[in-house]
C-alpha cells in the first residue's frame, strides 16, 4: 500500500509548476506523439530512420543544458567537453574489450560514468569556488577548448590507451556499435530501426525522468537558486550541493549524447569539442526555449531538422538564412520558438472561445 502511494507520488511529479503541459489533453497529446514516433519506421525509409536517430542523439545534450542553464541558471559552455570525454571513453573501452557478451552496454554506462566523474570534479571546482555568471561560461569553454587542443595533437603512435589509438585530429574510428546480446545472435545497433527504438525509448525515459526531477523538491530549489541565489542560501539551502548535483546530471546527459553519437557513426573527433560545437547546444536550447524541458526538446529537433534541410536545399545561402533565422528568433520570440508558438496558439484558442460565446 505504501509502495503504491510512493509510486503515485513520483508519478504526480510528472506535472508541476516547472514544466509546461498538464492535464488530460497534454498527456493525450504526448501519448499520441510517442505512438506516432513509434509507428514512424513502418512508413519511412531506412535513411530517414537513421537520420532521425542522429537528431535524437543530440537531444540528450540539449536536455542536459536545459537543466543546467534553464533551470539552474548556470551558462555552461562545456557540454561538448563531456560529450567528447564520454565518446572517447566508449571508443577506448570497446576497442580494447570488444563487443561480446553485451560489453558495449557496460561501456556505455562506464563512459557516461567517466563523464559524470569529470563533471563532479569540475563542478566542485566551479560551484564550491563560487564561480558564477559569465565566468562560469568562460571556464567551461576553456575546459572544452583545452580538451580539443590537446586531443587534436595526439596523432602519434605513442598516444594509445591499450590497443586504442587516440589518433588526434583525424579522429578515432572502428569502434563497434552498441550491441544487445541476444540468444539467437547479437543485435548490432546500426543506425536503423532497432537503434531508433532504443534511442526513442531512452529519450522518453530521460524526458519523463527529468520532468519528475524538476518538479520535485530538488527542482524547486534549483529554480529558487536561479532566481536569487542569496535568498535561497538564506533560506538554509546549501546551494553549492544543488548546483553540483544538477551539473552532474546535465553533464552526464551530454556524455550519453556523446556515446550514442560515437556508436551511431563509429567515429569521434576532437572537433566535437571545439568552439563551434560548443556554441551549438546553446543555440538550440536558446532558440527552443530554455526555461522548459518540452520546449527545449521540440526546439532542438526543430532547429536540427531545419538547419539540415537548409543545408541540403539552400546551397551557399544556407548559412546566411540560418543566421537570419537566429536573429529573428531572438528578437521576435524571446521565450523561444516553441513557447512562442504555444502561447500564440493558446491566445488564438481563447480568442476563438470568446468569439463563440459573444452574442
Amino acid at each position, binding site marked *: 500500500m505504501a509502495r503504491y502511494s510512493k509510486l503515485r507520488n513520483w508519478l504526480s511529479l510528472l506535472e508541476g509548476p516547472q514544466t509546461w503541459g498538464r492535464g488530460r489533453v497534454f498527456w493525450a497529446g504526448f501519448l499520441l506523439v510517442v505512438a506516432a514516433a513509434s509507428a514512424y519506421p513502418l512508413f519511412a525509409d531506412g535513411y530517414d530512420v537513421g537520420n532521425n536517430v542522429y537528431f535524437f542523439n543530440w537531444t540528450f545534450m540539449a536536455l542536459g543544458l536545459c537543466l543546467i542553464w534553464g533551470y539552474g541558471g548556470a551558462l555552461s559552455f562545456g557540454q561538448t567537453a563531456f560529450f567528447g570525454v564520454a565518446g572517447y571513453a566508449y571508443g577506448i573501452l570497446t576497442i580494447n574489450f570488444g563487443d561480446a557478451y553485451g560489453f558495449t552496454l557496460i561501456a556505455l554506462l562506464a563512459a557516461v560514468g567517466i563523464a559524470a566523474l569529470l563533471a563532479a570534479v569540475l563542478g566542485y571546482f566551479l560551484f564550491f569556488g563560487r564561480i558564477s555568471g559569465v565566468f562560469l561560461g568562460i571556464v567551461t569553454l576553456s575546459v572544452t577548448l583545452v580538451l580539443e587542443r590537446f586531443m587534436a*595533437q595526439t596523432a602519434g603512435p605513442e598516444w594509445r590507451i591499450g590497443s586504442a589509438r587516440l589518433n588526434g585530429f583525424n579522429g578515432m574510428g572502428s569502434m563497434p556499435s552498441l550491441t544487445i546480446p541476444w540468444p539467437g545472435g547479437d543485435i548490432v545497433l546500426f543506425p536503423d530501426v532497432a537503434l531508433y527504438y532504443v534511442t526513442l525509448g531512452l529519450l522518453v525515459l530521460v524526458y519523463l525522468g527529468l520532468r519528475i526531477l524538476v518538479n520535485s523538491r530538488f527542482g524547486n530549489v534549483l529554480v529558487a537558486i536561479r532566481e536569487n541565489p542569496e535568498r535561497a542560501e538564506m533560506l538554509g539551502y546549501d546551494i553549492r550541493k544543488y548546483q553540483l548535483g544538477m551539473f552532474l546530471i546535465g553533464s552526464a546527459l551530454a556524455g550519453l549524447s556523446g556515446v550514442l553519437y560515437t556508436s551511431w557513426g563509429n567515429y569521434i573527433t576532437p572537433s566535437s569539442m571545439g568552439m563551434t560545437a560548443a556554441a551549438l547546444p546553446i543555440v538550440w536550447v536558446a532558440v527552443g526555449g530554455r526555461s522548459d524541458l518540452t520546449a527545449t526538446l521540440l526546439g532542438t529537433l526543430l532547429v536540427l531538422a531545419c538547419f539540415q534541410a537548409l543545408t541540403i536545399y539552400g546551397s*551557399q545561402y544556407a548559412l546566411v538564412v540560418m543566421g537570419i533565422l537566429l536573429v529573428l528568433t531572438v528578437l521576435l520570440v524571446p521565450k523561444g520558438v516553441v513557447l512562442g508558438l504555444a502561447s500564440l496558439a493558446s491566445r488564438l484558442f481563447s480568442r476563438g472561445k470568446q468569439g463563440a460565446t459573444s452574442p
Partner: protein
Amino acid sequence: MYKRLSGTLAAVGALMLTSGLAAAQEPIKVGVLEDQSGDFAAATIGKVHAIELATEEINKAGGISGRPIELVVYDTQSDNTRYQEFMRRVLQRDKVDVVFAGFSSASREAYRPIVNQFDGFAFYNNQYEGGVCDANMVVTGAVPEQQFSTLIPWMMETYGKKVYTLAADYNFGQISAEWVRNIVKENGGEMVGEEFIPLGVSQFSQSIQNIQAAKPDFVVTLLVGTAQASYYEQAASANLGLPMASSVNVGQGYEHKRFTPPSLANMYVTTNYIEEVDTPASKDFLARFKAKFPDEPYVNQEAANSYIALNLYKEMVERANGSTVRDDLRKIIAEGDVCFDGPSGKVCLDPKSQHMSHTIFLAKVEADHSITFPKVWEDIKPYWLGDAGCDLTQNDPSEQYTPSNPPPKAN
C-alpha cells in the same frame, strides 16, 4: 470498345518502349560532398567546379557507356558531422553509384565507416598523409612518398644538409614530418629542429626566432589552414631569408597569389598539378576550365585530381561494360592499367593500394611570385602501401596505416 482497347494497348506499348529506352539512358549518379563554405572553402570550391567541367565534357561526348552523369552535390560546410549526415543520405536515399568526397583527413575518416557499412564506392581526391588501405576507397591525391622522396633529396643537394621542419600539429603534419625525418636521415642530413604548430594559430614570432637560433639550410613548411599560412608573411617581414620546401602550400592554397611578393620567394613545392604548368595538355585543360568558370581564383592540384578522378571512373565503368557495381570495377583496377592522360600527363591507378601514380612537378616561387619548374619527375608510384604489405587485390583491412603503424606482415 475495340477502339478503346486498341488505344490502351498502343499506349501501354508506347510506354514500355519508352521506358525501355529510358532504362538505357538512366543516368549514372555521382555524389559530391565538398566544403563549399566554412574554413576549407578556399581550396575546395575549385574541386566542385572541376567535377562539373568533367561532367559537362563527358556528357557532351555521350556520357559513360551511353548514360549521362547526374551530379548530386551537398555542401558539407567544413564540418565532419555534415559529412556523416550527407554520406548516409547520398548512399541510402539518393542511391548514387559513386561519391567524390572529402578535403581534410578527419572528414574522410568520419565518412569511411559509413561507406563501409553501405558497401559504397568513394573517391578521395586530396593529398594527405597516406596509408588508407580500404577497398571501398580510391585515392587520387598525392601521398608523402611521392612528394617528399622527390623534394627533400633535391633540396638537400641544392641547399645543404641541415633541415628545420615547421609542421601543423595533427596527423597530416606529424606523419609528413616523420617522412621528412626519415628521408633526411637516409640522405645523410641533420634535423636541426622540428616544431609543431596547433591548427588555428596565426602568430609566429617565437617560431621565427627558433628557426634563426637553429640555423638550418632550409625550412620544410607543412602548414595547413589559412591561419597558419600567415607564417609566410611574418617570416618575410622578419627577413628570415631561408629557402623553404613544402608539399602542401602553393599547390593547394595558392599562397603565391594571395600574399604580396616577395614573401614566398625561394619556396619549392612538389605538387602533382598547378595551373602554371605549361605543358600543352595543361594549357588546354586550363583554357577549358576558365571558359566555363572565368572567375575561378585558382585551379589547384585538388581540382585537377577531381577532374582526373571522374575520367578514371568513366574508364573503369566502360571497361566493365557499363557496370557500376563496385566489385566489377575493382576487378578492372586489379588489371593494373586503368590510366588517364590528363592535365598533368599520364597517371595510373595502383591495384594494390588503389592510389594513383603522379607526375610530380617541382615548382619554384620566384621573387615576384611567378612560378618556374626546375624539375619534373614522371610516373612516381604510390609505392609505400604496397611495399608495406597492403594488397587490396587479396584482402580488405579498411584501415589507415602510418610508417610507425604499418600493416601487420602476412605470416
